[in-house]
């Protein structure tokens, strides 16, 4: 099937305005007749829920956390982009659009990206009005800094805690509506299935994490804002609970999953220290503004970094990408790190690390300035590793961080299932095959504050919805299936824990579907994953009860879905027989090791349709056309 992204006609600069005018409206009095279920309270979910409630819709919100403020968005460090051009360095909506399309290696939908750049400025206005304490100049004006993949300063930030401050802003707007009784909030409640009636998304089935109760909720639309799936790799920079269940379950009910193989490996994370490791910690990319990345010139050089003289160091990013230097985009910087480590020039106990060195910056700017800029990050690094980065260079290595893939949505952020809207990291997004730094926060808030609140109204105004309740047989059936699944997990009586399975899955995925992929490694993974899944369903151990707070069961449910989802990811990586952005197929590279796209065959979105566990899903495509940013080889030299 050829999918239609429903992009409005007209010049790209006018599409969104024109579309907003052409969309049908729901009158203020009628809005309160519609109920919207929002799953997720990260930047996307919280901003959408608050904005929809402000408009007068009935909203119910769900999160598995104890409080909406704990969503993974809280951990974003570096900043948020906008095309304000406050520094007067030549930025514009057009340039942000251009950078994002190019940064995504020409695998995103132009019209969406342009709209994202357009509303980026409104986001900053909104956040400032909410009281987000962005960094300021002495004059009182907002301050900016630069980020990977951009040659200018368009990033707004709140120390190293931008995500926290933006989320607290959206959370406060959300809680205000909860207080006004416009939103019903369900915490410690996990969505385990989507209910589709006559092809239309009408509700969800959830598990109360405190007492195990399975419940149904009905609505006129469902919004998934459930984040990304980097934890399919087990070790990633994501929070422990991040999982794919919500979007994967929607996929199993007929929603298409787009570009699942587009995952981002972040270049600056603290390397793994041992088998006990539960997560990898990101060191904000902003560090690359002042830190210089290097490895020894000679393989196997075991001297202390401070003993290695200047002319025996290879500042490889500056050497290979002179115009962007240490600020080369993430996929490029990550692969370069892997390459030098594969050459035997990696450092640290495992040889899987490179240096990020601040000694020049400290000499140039003084320790105080560096402390002001990165103090909290340096402290965090020292707490985790026991090393002091003011004295010895940091050691970093790439780690899974963000997922560009997600449920397929049209220009209105609606999936192919009418009524199912998907926002934030959970959708297949505007970032193509690689996301630029500080653009996820922008996209989550754009979707939630400024896009979905308009487009969802159009859906209601143009759709005749049957009246249904949770007594509908489809709800009952769905509930039964969820209960069955839980019963089955409780009764396997095997010998391995969900965490052991997750760790094994992560290793298969990292080794074969990670930073570099080949036909051979993917085919191997395609054999290993189903085997592991089979073992899971026959050899899982379980403790506790289903009708109680049960952390082992929670984990098992999530791992079960990862084990199926992983296969989908592999299929996508295998069929996309090209390299682009974060998807690097070793067979397709230029002599200098850069990713080689195949626009003839793959200038499209791949959107997958479920056909049963273990079966090859059906691959649909949405062709991509580039009218405004001409297709070129991405160069950061």
């Amino acid at each position, binding site marked *: 099937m050829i999918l239609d992204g429903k992009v409005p006609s007209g010049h790209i600069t006018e599409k969104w305005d024109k579309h907003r005018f052409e969309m049908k409206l729901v009158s203020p009095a009628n809005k309160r007749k519609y109920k919207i279920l929002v799953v997720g309270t990260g930047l996307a979910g919280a901003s959408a829920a608050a904005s929809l409630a402000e408009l007068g819709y009935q909203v119910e919100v769900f999160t598995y956390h104890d409080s909406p403020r*704990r969503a993974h968005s809280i951990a974003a460090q570096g900043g948020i982009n906008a095309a*304000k051009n406050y520094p007067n360095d030549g930025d514009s909506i057009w340039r942000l659009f251009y950078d994002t399309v190019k940064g995504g290696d020409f695998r995103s939908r132009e019209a969406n990206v342009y709209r994202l750049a357009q509303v980026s400025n409104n986001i*900053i206005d909104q956040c*400032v009005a909410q009281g987000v304490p962005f960094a300021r100049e002495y004059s009182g004006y*907002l301050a900016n800094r630069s980020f990977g993949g951009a040659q200018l300063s368009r990033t707004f930030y709140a120390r190293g805690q931008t995500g926290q401050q933006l989320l607290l802003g959206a959370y406060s707007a959300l809680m*205000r509506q909860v*207080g006004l009784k416009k939103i019903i909030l369900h915490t410690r409640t996990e969505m385990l299935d989507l209910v589709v009636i006559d092809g239309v998304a009408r509700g969800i089935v959830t598990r109360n994490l405190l007492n195990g109760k399975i419940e149904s909720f009905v609505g006129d639309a469902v919004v998934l804002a459930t984040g990304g799936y980097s934890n399919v790799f087990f070790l990633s920079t994501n929070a422990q609970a991040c999982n794919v269940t919500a979007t994967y379950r929607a996929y199993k009910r007929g929603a298409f999953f787009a570009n699942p193989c587009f995952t981002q490996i972040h270049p600056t994370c603290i390397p793994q220290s041992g088998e*006990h490791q539960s997560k990898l910690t*990101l060191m904000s990319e902003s560090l690359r503004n002042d830190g210089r990345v290097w490895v020894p010139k000679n393989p196997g050089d075991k001297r202390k970094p401070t003993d290695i003289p200047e002319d025996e160091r290879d500042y490889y990013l500056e050497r290979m990408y002179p115009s962007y230097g240490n600020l080369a985009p993430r996929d490029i910087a990550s692969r370069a790190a892997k390459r030098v480590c594969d050459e035997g020039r990696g450092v640290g106990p495992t040889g899987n690390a490179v240096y990020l060195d601040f000694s020049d910056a400290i000499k140039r700017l003084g320790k105080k300035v560096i402390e002001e800029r990165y103090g909290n990050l340096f402290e965090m690094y020292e707490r985790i590793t026991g090393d002091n980065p003011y004295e010895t260079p940091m050691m970093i290595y790439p780690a899974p961080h963000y997922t560009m893939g997600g449920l397929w949505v049209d220009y209105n952020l609606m999936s192919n299932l009418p009524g199912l809207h998907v926002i934030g990291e959970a959708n297949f997004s505007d970032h193509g095959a690689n996301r630029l730094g500080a653009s996820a926060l922008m996209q989550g808030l754009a979707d939630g504050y400024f896009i979905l609140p308009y487009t969802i109204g159009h859906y209601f105004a143009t759709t005749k919805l049957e009246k249904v309740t949770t007594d509908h047989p489809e709800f009952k059936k769905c509930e039964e299936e969820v209960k069955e699944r839980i019963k089955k997990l409780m009764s396997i009586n095997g010998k391995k824990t969900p965490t052991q399975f997750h760790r094994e899955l992560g290793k298969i995925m990292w080794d074969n579907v990670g930073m570099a992929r080949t036909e051979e490694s993917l085919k191997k993974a395609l054999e290993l994953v189903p085997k592991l899944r089979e073992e899971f369903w026959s050899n899982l151990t379980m403790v506790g009860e289903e009708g109680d*707070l049960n952390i082992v069961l929670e984990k098992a449910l999530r791992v079960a879905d990862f084990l199926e989802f992983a296969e989908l990811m592999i299929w996508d990586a295998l069929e996309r027989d090209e390299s682009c952005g974060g998807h690097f197929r070793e067979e397709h590279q230029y002599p200098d090791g850069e990713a080689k796209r195949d626009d003839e065959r793959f200038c499209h979105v791949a959107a997958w349709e479920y056909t049963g566990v273990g079966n090859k899903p059906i691959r649909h495509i949405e062709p991509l056309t580039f009218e405004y940013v001409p297709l070129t080889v991405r160069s950061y030299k």
Partner: protein
Amino acid sequence: MKLTLHIWRQKNSSEKGHFETYQLDNVIEDMSFLEMLDVLNEKLVLEGKEPIAFDHDCREGICGACSLTINGIPHGPEKATTTCQLHMRKFKDGDEIWIEPFRAKAFPVIKDLIVDRSAFDRIIQAGGFISVNTGQAPEANSILVPKQNAEKAMDAAQCIGCGACVAACPNGSAMLFVSAKVAHFAYLPQGQPERKLRVLKMVEQMQKEGFGNCSNMYECEAACPKEISVRNIALMFRDYLKASCSEEKLELVENE
């Protein structure tokens, strides 16, 4: 290293809890405290026993989910560090460690080391916001904020809502948490229109939730992983006094 762990086990909020003792060998220095508990939990599950339930998520010291009282100190002995950022190199071979939930009247235990901190959400819900709808905002640079004020606001806004301040306070007071939010907005021009109403409503909700009063022990500040200053409490007291004899207070009373 080898450790002896005394860990609080409690089936649910209605049953009584007790300490149970576990021996753990092969603890590695580079492990975080929660990774050490992961190892113990994996062991328990493999023995067919229920693992120890504890709240956690980001493991980067920012989400505010982790919440253990370690050797009597909320978030453990390390200054300005959440439990998830505490590493085992701060302990030594043979140590005995006592692990309990955050204890406070307003934070009932749910299971083992998990407590219910939803009272914090209800305090925010009562007034911890600026009432601006999406779309109403003016151009961002039309609101100037002196750098010093922005920094002070940020210092207060860093609160992660963990509740260690409450657990550390002999009175179970939530003053540090509430005052951090009050101060965050009080330092900003955007926060001024609702300044009085905000403090009145948040303090009222705080009292309803059963948090205790402040008697200047400063235990909260000492336990706070984000080093939120008790000076915020002083600011909140001043604001509360001013607000108590204002038009806003009259209106609140009349509306009741």
